[in-house]
């Protein structure tokens, strides 16, 4: 009976002790020791081999808050100094899904997952992540991510609109050329060009001048808007000169051309000054 009890205790000790033994590497250092060592010696955290060994130790360690902390150190090294975002994301996901991780560590991991996805231009995935794990993220941050996703959708739509506009105008001008009526477009452009160019110059110079007065202002968006307004309006006039004269066609053209002006402005702001878009709630 005593032998059986001793054997049972020995087996139990083995089961309990196994993860602790497994959490030690070949040099005998435990996860806690290695983590403390890396934290005390910053040079160690710049060595990929050391970070990999810490990751191995963490994988072998029992599920504790310490393991999550060690994984965060590993993830930050992969994401930052080592430039291995895929590995960093994998480790961050382990931390975020770890029920034994400290709440703050878990939230930090989730936030870094979303930040990393955005930095990799994977905005839709970042928004999905924020939707799925919104409870771990700051509501304001979640709103920002959704806004970014909406902006990306709008950007795609704006670009598609501009391509469609260019294609429709080109189609109509080619048709007019075949009908030998292109001269009408040229006549119309000659008549309207001075006014359009004056308007564009006004937008660029007056708007850019005012914007550059602002401490953190940037004349770039106004100069770019002035530069794109002229071609859009001139193309619109050329299209109307050779296009159908039916009321529905004219209304359709007007909507398409106005939408092109908005689309061009949106694309410009997205490229030059996204801060303006935030001001408009986009």
């Amino acid at each position, binding site marked *: 009976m005593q032998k059986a009890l001793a054997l049972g205790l020995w087996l139990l000790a083995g089961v309990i002790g196994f993860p602790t033994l497994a959490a030690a590497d070949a040099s005998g250092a435990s996860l806690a020791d290695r983590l403390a060592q890396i934290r005390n010696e910053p040079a160690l955290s710049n060595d990929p081999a050391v970070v990999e060994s810490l990751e191995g130790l963490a994988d072998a360690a029992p599920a504790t808050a310490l393991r999550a902390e060690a994984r965060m150190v590993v993830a930050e090294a992969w994401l930052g100094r080592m430039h291995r975002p895929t590995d960093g994301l994998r480790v961050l996901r382990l931390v975020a899904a770890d029920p034994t991780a400290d709440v703050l560590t878990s939230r930090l991991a989730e936030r870094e997952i979303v930040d990393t996805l955005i930095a990799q231009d994977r905005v839709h995935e970042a928004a999905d992540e924020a939707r799925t794990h919104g409870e771990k993220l700051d509501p304001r941050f979640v709103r920002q991510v959704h806004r970014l996703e909406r902006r990306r959708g709008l950007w795609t739509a704006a670009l598609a609109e501009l391509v469609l506009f260019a294609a429709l105008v080109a189609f109509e001008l080619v048709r007019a050329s075949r009908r030998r009526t292109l001269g009408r477009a040229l006549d119309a452009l000659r008549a309207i060009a001075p006014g359009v160019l004056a308007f564009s110059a006004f937008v660029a110079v007056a708007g850019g001048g005012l914007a550059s*007065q602002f401490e953190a202002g940037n004349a770039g968006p*106004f100069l770019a808007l002035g530069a794109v307004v002229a071609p859009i309006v001139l193309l619109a006039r050329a299209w109307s*000169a050779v296009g159908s004269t039916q009321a529905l066609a004219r209304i359709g053209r007007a909507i398409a051309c106005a939408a092109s002006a908005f689309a061009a402005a949106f694309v410009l702001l997205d490229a030059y000054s996204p801060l303006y878009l935030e001001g408009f709630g986009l």
Partner: protein
Amino acid sequence: MSERAPVAEGQVRQVRLGHGANCSSIGSVVDTLFATATVGAAIMAAVVAALASEPVRVVQPKAPRGDSERGTEP
């Protein structure tokens, strides 16, 4: 590097709420300015696109009836 002294409550005359509300510079309206320019451009494009060019047909003027009648008179 000098640190800015904290602003005492008595030094604040008025605080406005809203986007750029406490900014006295052009910075508070520069985005509105851009929006206005964009709307102006869109309206101009729409109006210009809605213009219709009617083809002009040049016709020969008919000869006055009186002249032809006069010409046939003996």
